[in-house]
């Protein structure tokens, strides 16, 4: 069944050459599209690939390259890139790169003098034709048929035509859907004029709004004023300094970072959110661990029956996908229709407003997070308790100690040390427990007096998420800067954890 030897010998080099060429082609495409950073990264990856798979010295790395490469590109690189974005003004106002912002402006057109046409789009089979009617003379023209597709420039020729087109007209709604494509159409009229879409149902002669000059400035063809790119503000500016949208991304140095710590309207919510993040993750760890530890002790108790049943039931919260259980609690805690308030109302006649009162919202988060997190601690503690030698308990029984004494004098001190690294990693996990906050409260209720929306239940990561992707105008740069600060905090926590792990391992020996 084996391949001929000659074929086998050539297969590998041939494959590498083929992949290499394919890679080079993609790099060229990316470079041509103006994404120099991406092209550079791809070229480096490609070079490393070819080197590893041809040099005999690098045999082991051939096995590592795919996995480590993926980890470097999709985990490490985004983290470094986050820090990089923190130094830019990247936001919804300064979304594009300089090149793209420039070409956007160069594509802008204004309506020049000349004939204007009422345009209708008619179906012809699966294709479409434009019918253009001169607004002054009423003379009619039709274009050749064309297919709708993704955005790309297209030039059509128009011929005079006296009869109406038979096909049905495209409704306005669909016209709007295809506007991006239709805007790219230029129609060459029989009189030599070229017209473009100037309204949803109008074609007219149009000219580019700006012309680029050799020194990088843009001349406005309508009023002959000059636009100059300002690489400090990230906008093209008129002579008076008025910015012209769209802006582009520029480096603004440490501005985002200094803003977090000096701008009062940012610093204050940042501080409060930081404190709540600490409180939230500390209390979660304390609650989950105490409950988990007590349960582990109980489930290791010889005189207790049905332990397997209890264990399975109590493990359930860990097995259910968290996005489901969190949303279930969101429904159960609902102020008006939630089942929890129905029960509380029936028993005590109260209906707490879980989602609108900051204190109650925070309590709810802790309750739900304890529900989600205690099984993990329970399983871990059960494993650790099993490792405690039994004669310790025998000795304490002889000395007449009760279970409470056993727990506080033997069990807890003995498992606390190996547990410490896990407690820290659990702390770090909850420090960044974005899923819980985002799905349960979304950070709400909000603080009232902040420039960027910030919630009383927001933790740092959900705060940056909202800043970047939700209500606050996509302040990517600022959000990335805060993320970078959180990176430092996580690094500090990790350093403590590594120390604790080392101590725990040394104890074991």
């Amino acid at each position, binding site marked *: 069944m084996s391949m001929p030897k000659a074929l086998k010998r050539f297969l590998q080099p041939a494959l590498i050459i083929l992949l290499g060429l394919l890679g080079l082609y993609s790099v060229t495409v990316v470079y041509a*599209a103006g994404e120099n950073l991406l092209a550079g990264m791809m070229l480096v990856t490609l070079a490393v690939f070819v080197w590893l798979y041809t040099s005999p010295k690098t045999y082991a790395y051939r096995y590592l390259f795919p996995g480590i490469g993926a980890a470097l590109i999709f985990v490490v690189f985004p983290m470094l890139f986050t820090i990089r974005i923190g130094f830019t003004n990247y936001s919804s106002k300064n979304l594009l790169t300089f090149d793209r912002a420039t070409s956007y402006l160069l594509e802008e057109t204004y309506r020049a003098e000349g004939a204007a046409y009422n345009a209708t789009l008619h179906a012809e089979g699966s294709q479409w034709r434009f019918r253009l009617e001169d607004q002054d003379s009423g003379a009619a023209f039709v274009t050749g048929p064309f297919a709708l597709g993704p955005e790309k420039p297209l030039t059509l020729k128009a011929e005079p035509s006296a009869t109406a087109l038979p096909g049905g007209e495209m409704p306005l709604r669909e016209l709007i859907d295809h506007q991006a494509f239709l805007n790219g159409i230029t129609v060459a009229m029989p009189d030599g004029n070229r017209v473009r879409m100037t309204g949803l149902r109008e074609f007219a002669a149009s000219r580019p709004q700006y012309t680029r000059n050799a020194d990088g400035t843009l001349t406005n063809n309508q009023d002959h004023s000059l636009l100059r790119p300002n690489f400090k503000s990230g906008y093209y500016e008129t002579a008076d300094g008025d910015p012209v949208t769209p802006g582009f991304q520029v480096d603004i140095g440490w501005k985002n970072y200094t803003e977090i710590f000096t701008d009062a309207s940012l610093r204050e919510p940042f501080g409060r959110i930081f404190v709540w993040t600490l409180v939230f993750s500390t209390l979660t760890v304390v609650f989950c661990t105490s409950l988990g530890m007590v349960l582990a002790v109980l489930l290791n108790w010889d005189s207790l029956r049905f332990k397997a049943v209890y264990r399975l*039931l109590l493990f359930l919260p860990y097995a259910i*996908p968290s996005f489901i*259980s969190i949303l279930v609690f969101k429904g159960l805690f609902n102020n008006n229709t939630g089942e929890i308030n129905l029960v509380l109302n029936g028993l005590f006649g109260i209906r707490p407003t879980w989602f609108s009162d900051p204190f109650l919202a925070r309590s709810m988060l802790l309750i739900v997070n304890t529900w989600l997190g205690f099984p993990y601690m329970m399983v871990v503690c059960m494993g650790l308790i099993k490792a405690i030698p039994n004669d310790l308990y025998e000795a304490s029984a002889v000395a007449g100690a009760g279970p409470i004494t056993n727990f506080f004098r033997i069990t807890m001190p003995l498992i606390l040390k190996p547990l410490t690294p896990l407690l820290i990693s659990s702390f770090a996990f909850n420090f960044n427990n974005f899923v819980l906050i985002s799905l349960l409260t979304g950070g709400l209720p909000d603080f009232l007096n902040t420039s960027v929306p910030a919630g009383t239940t927001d933790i740092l990561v959900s705060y940056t998420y909202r800043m970047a992707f939700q209500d606050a105008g996509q302040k990517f740069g600022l959000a990335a800067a805060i993320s970078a600060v959180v990176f430092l905090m996580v690094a500090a926590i990790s350093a403590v954890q590594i120390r604790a792990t080392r101590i725990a391992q040394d104890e074991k020996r």
Partner: protein
Amino acid sequence: MAIVIDKSQRWRVVLAHLFLILLCALVIFPLLMVVSISFRSGNFATGSLIPKSISLEHWRFALGLPVVNADGRVILPDLPVLRWLWNSIKVATLSAIVAVLLSTTAAYAFARMKFAGKKTALTGLMLMQMFPTVLALVAIHAIFSRLGHVFPALGVDGMWALILAYSGGIALHIWTIKGFYETIPPEIEEAATVDGATPWQAFWRVLLPMALPILMVVFLLAFIGAVNEYPVASVLLHTQDHLTMAVGSKQFLYAQKYLWGDFAAAAILSGLPISVVFILVQRWMISGLTSGANKG
């Protein structure tokens, strides 16, 4: 160990049972409630735990079947639950395959080969794991939206962007598989090498078949991980029809459109299989649990 069982001991057993039963009730109450709610009629209905009349409207909604309203109007479900579930399964299957492929080979090198920088690479992988992806969301979004300008298939709002983004998170899998390889005596492959096998053949023909169980476990863990992943998916996917279950589910519980009953049915539909699979594979995860893996 002979300990006299006295009266106080009996009381303690009873108390422990009461405590555990109470806690189990607290754990199970929300779950039973969801089952009950999924069979009630209407999205604001309240009632007892065991519904008096069983209505299948929410299950029909979750399965995408038309629902006949109380006033006789036929309503087509507007949230494509099955579509989301299918998207989740697609993304999770493909990214789990990628995870297994990438991590088995890397783990082989770590377990069996000598090379410069091995220790650094292993520590680096562990460190990488400590920094959550949530912090890099802005960058991930920026990277894929720029990638999409050049390769539309890999851009934001596509399945492949998500799969690529997940392919980096394999540090823990590498450690798991490496641990398993190390339990297999290297003499077996050495024997194969003596018989003239190349290292690749020794890996592919000898070691890998023996490691199939752990590869299955890693596949399932990666699968569950991808189904449950929310932050990256919520940033990379926008269009209603492209969402995964984890991102889409949120849309049931908006204040202005509150589909509590429909959510309950959809939650059971998607949550039950995942939970069962998780309980089955968690045995192999315990070692991973105690080495500091948290649920994400």
